[in-house]
């Protein structure tokens, strides 16, 4: 087997399937360690030579196991611990993302190419869920605008619509999600072009585990977590505001923008504070999740109470 760690041009298809990886570990270290492996389920492949990012926070990172076992990914169940179990065999290779719509160069991009479009950076972002919990995650990827520019959006493009992969056979729990699937999300084009908006292919130095949106997802640190759509297969540039899943499900509670905002409560609960996973006391929630210096200008003059 080739030494994965040092291989600069690792093909996505060469990544060892997780089942083999786990089997090998179990075989090597026996039952007690296998239990520990199953619990931490750390099966990603190391991503080499990561550039550091000035966007990173110096805050304490949330433990990997918390981020990989506590997930909202309704295609794999609505209980937090379900996706880590039910997404185990999620097939993420081969994978292509279609960039289409109002673009001069529509194209289908394979994972091999996505991994090479730009130098992979590690960005340690705060991530705040609309439910009132938060995590600090070292994501791996680069700015989403790298991919968008490649397709050359036309002058008609004003919004970006994203779509998640959905296969009811691989995701039988999706039928019970209570939200329409496939999951769709959207951004204004200027939001999507903002350098903080990230196309993520990994976390904690490795490829993404399925439950965190493998093989490729969007990460938007100043918005509630549900905007950061997972396992994307389609990026469509469009002229008018696209529908978004949680907004379709409940427009009064989940707006198109969904910027983190401690002064605008969710109709059912307060957004003033959050619990960082692994900590006991709640933190005060920050405007734009603490990214106001970078993104507040995107919303200058807008009534954020109306455009929640």
């Amino acid at each position, binding site marked *: 087997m080739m030494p994965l760690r040092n291989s600069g041009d690792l093909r996505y298809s060469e990544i060892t399937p997780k089942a083999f990886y786990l089997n090998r570990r179990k075989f090597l270290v026996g039952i007690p360690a296998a239990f520990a492996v199953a619990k931490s389920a750390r099966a990603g492949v190391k991503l080499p030579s990561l550039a550091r990012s000035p966007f990173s926070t110096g805050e304490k990172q*949330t*433990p990997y*196991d*918390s*981020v990989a*076992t*506590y997930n909202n990914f*309704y295609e794999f169940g*609505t209980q*937090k*611990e379900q996706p880590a179990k039910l997404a185990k065999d999620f097939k993420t290779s081969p994978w292509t993302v279609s960039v289409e719509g109002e673009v001069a160069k529509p194209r289908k991009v394979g994972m091999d190419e996505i991994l090479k479009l730009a130098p992979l950076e590690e960005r340690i972002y705060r991530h705040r869920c609309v*439910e009132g*919990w938060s995590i600090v995650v070292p994501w791996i990827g680069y700015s989403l605008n790298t991919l968008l520019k490649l397709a050359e959006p036309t002058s008609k493009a004003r919004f970006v619509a994203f779509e998640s992969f959905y296969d009811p056979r691989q995701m039988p729990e999706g039928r*019970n*999600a*209570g*939200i329409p699937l496939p999951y769709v999300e959207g951004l204004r084009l200027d939001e999507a072009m903002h350098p903080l908006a990230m196309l993520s292919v990994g976390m904690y130095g490795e490829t993404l585990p399925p439950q965190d949106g493998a093989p490729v997802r969007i990460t938007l640190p100043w918005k509630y977590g549900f905007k950061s759509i997972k396992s994307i297969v389609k990026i469509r540039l469009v002229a008018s505001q696209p529908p978004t899943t949680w907004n379709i*499900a*409940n427009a009064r509670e989940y707006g198109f923008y969904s910027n983190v905002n401690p002064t605008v409560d969710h109709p*059912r*609960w*307060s957004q*003033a*504070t959050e*619990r960082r*996973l*692994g900590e*006991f*006391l*709640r933190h005060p929630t920050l405007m734009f999740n603490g990214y106001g210096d970078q993104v507040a200008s995107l919303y200058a003059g807008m009534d954020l109470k109306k455009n929640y």
Partner: protein
Amino acid sequence: MAKTRSNALLRVAKALLFLACLAPLARLGWRAWNGNLTANPIEYITHFTGDWTIRLIVATLAVTPLRKLLHMPALIRYRRMIGLFAFFYGALHFLTWLCVDKFFQWPEIVKDLSKRPFIIAGFTAFACMAPLAATSTAGWIRRLGGKRWQLLHRLVYVTAIAAVTHYYWLVKSDVRLPVLYGTLVALELGYRVVVWARDRRRRGIPPAPRYGKLASTGAEIALS
């Protein structure tokens, strides 16, 4: 002789039920001991205790229909224990929210209790259970009198409806469990409405032998 044996059986059955009702708490303790309360233990404990509260409320309300439909009047002897355990898990649920989740942040707690419909519903459910737990003893049945005691304990209907509402308003999109519990509570309350309407109709015609039966029900409650 037969009576002694049936008393012994009852005692064994009650002890088993007591242990069964404690099993969820034991399971929670075991998971805590193993550090297996998910990445968000406070939320896990809150949901876990809430789940068991509502299950035991549903179980409490099932006793009356079941004993009549299955012709097992002795089931009434277990109702108080199930109801008290519902209150016990409800208290754990409430205290987890108050002392751990909100950590005595009174301004936020007061805001939640006055502004958040799902919290108001949950608190209503819990508040209505408290006087029932306090007056669950035979002494209180005597003190209040069977009729008044029964009237007071109809607050459990408010508890059940408020608890289901609390749960339904809490979930984001997957309403399967709140709908399941809501359906069960609706069946349980519907049964009572049907029986009540039938009894009323019967009472209207001949002065029924029904009263005798009601009186004996009261006595059974008093004894249980």
